Each structure stands twice: as structure tokens, then as C-alpha cells.
């Protein structure tokens, strides 16, 4: 089963990368605000959707996200 993990800087955490991206977009003439830069991790995991979610949740806790500064979201994709 294909799974995507979206890792984001937690709300309220300073994100200098997001600010730099936002600044560049504004220089290009785009009116944007609230730019935040996170990370996308695609995985293939064996098992049922429930099993996959449980496993990936454990992966996030142990390695993929640092709970001090990051939140994560797990997306399961149909095979």
C-alpha cells in the first residue's frame, strides 16, 4: 500500500525557510502569506490500511518527525 507522510513545522514554530520562500514569491509579484516549508515522504508498506497506518504512525514517532517542532499527517493511497 502506498502511503504519504506530510511533515510540517508545528504551528507557532518559526520557519525561516517558509519566510524566505514567501519573500521570494512576493518579489515575483505573487500576493501570498503564511508560507511554511515541510517535507513529503512516500512509502510502500505491507498490510491492510489499518495496519499500514499503525506502522507508519510508529515510524513517525521513532524517526520521521520530531515532536518538539514538527507535526505529521498520514495519507493512505488506494493500490
Amino acid at each position, binding site marked *: 500500500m502506498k502511503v504519504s507522510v506530510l511533515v510540517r513545522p508545528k504551528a507557532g*514554530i*518559526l520557519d*525561516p*525557510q517558509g519566510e524566505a520562500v514567501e519573500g521570494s514569491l512576493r518579489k515575483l509579484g505573487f500576493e501570498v502569506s503564511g508560507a511554511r516549508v515541510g517535507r513529503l515522504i512516500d512509502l510502500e508498506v505491507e498490510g491492510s490500511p489499518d495496519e499500514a497506518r499503525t506502522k507508519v504512525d510508529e515510524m513517525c514517532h521513532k*524517526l*520521521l518527525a*520530531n515532536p*518538539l*517542532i514538527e507535526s505529521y499527517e498520514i495519507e493512505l493511497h488506494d493500490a
Partner: protein
Amino acid sequence: MTPSSAPARVAVITFPGSQDDRDAVLALNNLGAQAVPVWHADEELPDVGAVVLPGGFSYGDYLRAGALARFSPAMEAVARFAADGGIVLGICNGFQILCEAGLLPGILRGNVSLDFVCRDVPVRVERADTAFTSRCASGQRLVIPVKHGEGCWYADDELVSELEENGQILLRYEENPNGSLRDVAGVINREGNVMGLMPHPEHAVDPLLGSPDGALILESMLDAVRERAAVPA
């Protein structure tokens, strides 16, 4: 011969991507210690009184700096060593690894400026009653170089208050080069046997290369190793 006259033995771990391991070995040996190189795949530590995790870019800093190195066999041995009260010093990437491993509080994030910084910085020693600062005076100003892109230490309000209360913030920048919270340059664990710092004491041990102030931190650590060796088990 008393046990304390033997040179302090210190393991220096090399991860794939470490780059300051040899400077750490050189600095420790020049200060009279016996540095013992250890490879990241080694599952056991040699018989040493302390461990140094050197600077560099272990595992390419992939995912988050230090996040992958913490799972190496040598780090599992270091975690056991630290749990038994062993002295562990993490420098730069070593500090990042210790934070990711949960052996030190907080996390190192990208510099607020987004720039890599490489220069001498003044830091203030907040406490001199630790295994890593006993040769310093409380409030002493040390000049030690930094060179990092991800040295912005962060912790949430609750954790920071706890650390301030416990006196775990050991070094503070007098000129903050990376935006770290409360100017934190180095922290120590609650038990007092694990310390991490972004500045590089191993690059500041010889007046010929600028400041010798880093030697005070390394020599404090070596004193602690020798003192412990002198105490009969």
C-alpha cells in the same frame, strides 16, 4: 603508580560524514589524553572514561541533522554508557545527535539567517561546577569557533523553564550567531554527565590558531575522567 596518573582514555566516534573526528583525536592527545577512535558500526565501546561525538554531517544530515546517526550500533553503546553515568561530550553534529537521541533536551534547527556561519564567537560559561566546565570560572567568557548551518537550539516554553531552573543551560552566546532560543550554545543533562555544544572546543586548543579557550572544556572533561578513575570502585 596511582590510577589518576594514567592518561584519560576517550573514545571518539566516527560516523559516515564525520569530519572533525581527527581534530578531536589530535586535540585530546595534545592535552595528554589517549584518544581511541571508534567506528560507528562498532557495537561495543572500548574501555574508556569518556566519549566524544565529533562534528560533521553524519549520514549527510539527511531527514534532520543527527536523526539517522542515533540508530547506529555505536550510538546504542553510547546510550548505555551514558545511562551508566559515563561522560559524553557532543560537539556540533555530536550535539545534534545527542538531542535526536533524547540524551540531551531540545533540538537543533536551521539557523534563523538560513546562512552557514563559520567564525569565532564569544560564549559565557553559566556554571563552573560541572564535569565540562570545572577549569572555567562562572561567568567566564570563552572565544570558540562555530561552523554550522543548523545550530539554532530550540525547546518549548515548558522545557526551557525546566532547564533554566535546573541550571542545565551551560553555555550562552554573547553574540548569537544562529538565532538559538535564549542564546543557548550548550546544554547539559540533568544528571550532569552528558553535554552538547555547537562551538568547537577541539578547534580552539592552540594559541597559534587563535583562541586556546576550547582546551578549558576538554581539560575539564579529562579532569573528571581522571577523578573518577582515581576513586576506587
